[in-house]
């Protein structure tokens, strides 16, 4: 009994140390623009985007166990919504960000019928949806597709690099915070039950489809918000850079690389993969994609629980 209490205590102490470390590193990161060069500031902004995207994918793919291969669509949709609202409607930027999230979330509702499938079939259906939507965006005149002379959207300059640094960091913290909060509610419990065994979950009265829909919309809203913030940061967006399948794949790879189904996993994965990515771009350009692929195979073949599992005993 006393041993159990002692181990509990060390756990709490560990948690306290962890919280302190977390707060310290957050402050250090938040003060980044004061000591980082513009190059590293840019790198970190991309890291923030990557972590936020992977964390939101993790809600449906990791925690609920429904691997969506079409999540990049919501990011692209957020970016396009923001661009269209700002360029066509002159909507202020904060409203455009909310609009991006709202459109992505509303669009996610259309995916609900796909929840009748599981595993491979769900993955392939969502992948097909991604390609279908990408084709429509690419060729529809409303989204400025087809004609080569006006493909894509140019956005006005909305803020300095520092502004986007704090904006994306703020959105990232809000995103992860909201995920942690959501997992503490009934929704989180239900999702974990669905992941374990959906038939059992349904048989004890958990309305699976409703919770899966909530999780899916939730995990689509954040990519929409991030996409809306991404569009003016990139200044020029087109279907090639925001609807690209590589955005979807990056979300999945980062979440799995770090540790699927955990909060810390996408954070570790986003940091490590982005840094390795930068280094191999800089020094081993020809082998860059090869290294990326090898790391993914290695982690899944030998550490399927991800890098985060190294820190747990």
């Amino acid at each position, binding site marked *: 009994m006393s041993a159990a209490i002692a181990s509990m205590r060390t756990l709490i102490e560990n948690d306290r140390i962890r919280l302190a470390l977390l707060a310290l590193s957050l402050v250090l990161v938040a003060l980044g623009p004061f000591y980082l060069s513009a190059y590293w500031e840019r790198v970190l902004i991309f890291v923030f985007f990557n972590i936020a995207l992977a964390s939101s994918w993790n809600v449906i*793919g990791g925690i609920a*166990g429904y*691997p969506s*291969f079409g999540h990049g669509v919501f990011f692209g949709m957020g970016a396009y919504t923001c661009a269209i609202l700002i360029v066509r409607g002159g909507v202020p930027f904060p409203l455009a960000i909310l609009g991006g999230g709202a459109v992505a979330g509303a669009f996610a509702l259309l995916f609900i*019928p*796909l929840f*009748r*499938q*599981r*595993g*491979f*079939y769900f*993955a*392939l*259906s969502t*992948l*097909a*949806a991604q*390609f*279908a*939507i*990408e*084709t*429509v965006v690419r*060729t529809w005149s409303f989204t400025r597709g*087809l004609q080569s002379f006006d493909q894509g959207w140019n956005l006005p300059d909305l803020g300095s690099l520092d502004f986007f640094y704090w904006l994306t960091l703020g959105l990232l913290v809000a995103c992860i915070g909201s995920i942690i909060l959501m997992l503490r509610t009934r929704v989180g419990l239900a999702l974990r039950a669905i992941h374990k065994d959906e038939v059992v979950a349904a048989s004890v009265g958990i309305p699976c489809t409703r919770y899966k829909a909530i999780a899916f919309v939730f995990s689509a809203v954040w990519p929409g918000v991030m996409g809306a913030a991404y569009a003016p940061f990139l200044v020029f967006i087109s279907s090639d850079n925001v609807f690209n399948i590589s955005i979807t*794949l990056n979300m*999945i*790879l980062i979440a*799995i690389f770090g540790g*699927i189904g955990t909060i810390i996993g996408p954070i570790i994965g986003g940091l490590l993969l982005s840094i390795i990515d930068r280094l191999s771009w800089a020094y081993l350009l*020809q*082998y860059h*994609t*090869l290294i*990326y*692929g*090898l790391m*993914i*195979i290695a982690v*899944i*073949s*030998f550490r*399927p629980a991800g890098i985060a599992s190294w820190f747990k005993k």
Partner: protein
Amino acid sequence: MSEIIEIIIFGTLRGAIFALAAFGFSLVLGVLGIVNFAHGVFVVLGALITWSLTAQIGINIVVASLIAAGSMGVLGVFIQKVFIDRVFKLHPLMILVQTFGVAVVATQLAELAWGGGERSLKVEFPGPALLTIGDIYIPTWDIVIFVISLIAAGVLVMIMQMTPLGRAVRACRDNIDSASLVGVDVGRVFLITMGICGIWSGLAGALVITLKPTGPYMHFFWTLDAFLVVVIGGMGSISGALIGGFLYGIINFAAYYYLPNQAPAIIFATLIALLMIRPQGLFGLGTTVRK
């Protein structure tokens, strides 16, 4: 009217290649119960190896195709033994991402070897270049490839139906636990299945490169095509994949003929619709995938 007939004829001819590329995919989905994202690699590498052996070394194309198909069989066994086997018991997502990683690495290695561009192979063929049926002209080579695909399908059906090996594979497809209870070495059947998958898909690649330029980056389209064929035709059965291939060939040809810009959207929307209505395929065996 003749337009529709032309679409059906050309779609069916092209569909035979899709079917040939999908036989292995269908078997692997039926027996192992997994989707192999590296499937298109077999097709693309089979094509490029055939190109190298024929255009660079000067080996007869028939021999070259067989060598290419055989080496893809070895690659299939290798991928199963070294990679898929390790994560087989985990969530299907892991296999998807792992085989995707394999596909990325294989594509990168292929780009180092062959470059990122496309290659094509022109086959000198005795006899007339075009056949006429009524007022429709059909390239003779397309018909030759159609016949080769049908023969390859026939050989696979014979192996599956008449040999002890085929019986073991079919047993695992129907019920893996019962098969292992009556003494089938399931692990070995998995290896053989992946080997067969590699051989037949590699052969499809060897034929494809004589029809249209093929480059390493195209592997993902072949994986998706194979999946579409299997979704239309039903998994696990060779005849289902064959019919699925023909139907997909016609749909594909018609979509690109009438709406070239929107064709991918139409094709993928068809895929989603089919997955929702009949996930076991139009001519499926009635079983759905285990994972």
